[in-house]
């Protein structure tokens, strides 16, 4: 049983232990935060928009992958998604893009793996990737049925 798992004698001791645990992971946090800055500045909205070809199936996959790479506030994905719709990109692709933006994160993978384990990270992200595409397809199909 790890030292962290043993119940601390006082709350103060627990607080110290929690703070030290966060301090220990700061190099990874700083690395991830550094990557977030790079992705936000070097991967522009125009670059992401240029990936779409207006072919629904291909664009749904592209939307999922592009959303998974992109970082930033979810609001940005709505604005960009709205623009993509205006440009004629399918709702399947835009839904996948908006959803992947908040559920997937290539940048945070190292930290997730370190904190929660490599296997958990692989399984969770693979499932999220598949379900993001499925959710996008089901959402648009349902809207079609509802008229």
């Amino acid at each position, binding site marked *: 049983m790890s030292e962290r798992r043993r*119940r601390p004698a006082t709350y103060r001791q627990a607080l110290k232990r929690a703070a030290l645990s966060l301090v220990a*992971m700061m190099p990874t946090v700083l690395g991830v*935060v550094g990557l*977030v800055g790079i992705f*936000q500045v070097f991967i522009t909205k125009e670059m992401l928009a240029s990936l779409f070809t207006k072919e629904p199936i291909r664009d749904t996959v592209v939307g999922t992958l592009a959303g998974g790479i992109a970082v930033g506030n979810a609001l940005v994905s*709505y604005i960009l998604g709205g623009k993509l719709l205006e440009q004629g990109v399918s709702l399947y692709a835009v*839904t996948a893009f908006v959803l992947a933006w908040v559920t997937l994160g290539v940048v*945070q993978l190292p930290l997730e793996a370190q904190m929660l384990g490599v*296997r958990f990270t692989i399984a*969770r992200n693979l499932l999220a990737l598949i379900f993001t595409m499925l959710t996008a397809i089901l959402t648009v199909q349902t809207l079609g049925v509802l008229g």
Partner: protein
Amino acid sequence: MKLRFQGVKFMVGVGLLYGGLALYDSDKTLQALQKSGMVLMEILAIFSVVVFISAAIHYYIDSRSLAKHLGEESGLKGWLIALGAGVLSHGPMYAWYPMIRDLREHGAGDGRVAAFFYARAIKVPLLPIMVEYFGLAFTIVLTIYILLSAWIQGLIMDRIDWIAEDREP
């Protein structure tokens, strides 16, 4: 507790990447550094809350009682707590990793954790804006499917025994 830093090589690698990018475009690299600084401030604010929650988990919460509420056997209540917490949580996903790690160590099931993460796709404060951009029907249908997807992913995660092997012994 002995302090052992994790991810030093990764951080150095990102530092080197900044160095390389600065040679290519110093203005953009500076912008990236500024953006990172802003993100770091946001993370540190969340971390200050996470420290207190983590300490409380370690000190007050007994593993058996937490497993009862969020473990694999916690039933509908466990799913509702995980989904509700996901919908209500704010900030970047990675800011919540330390707290989630502590909860897993105290018995929270992988399925509930996965459901929590996926339910975070529902951003309550941004729902009016989603309605504005994509319409009310789209927002309602997508929100329902996100919750269903989160729950189904959780059910699948609970059935993948392979994951349990990388939990601490």
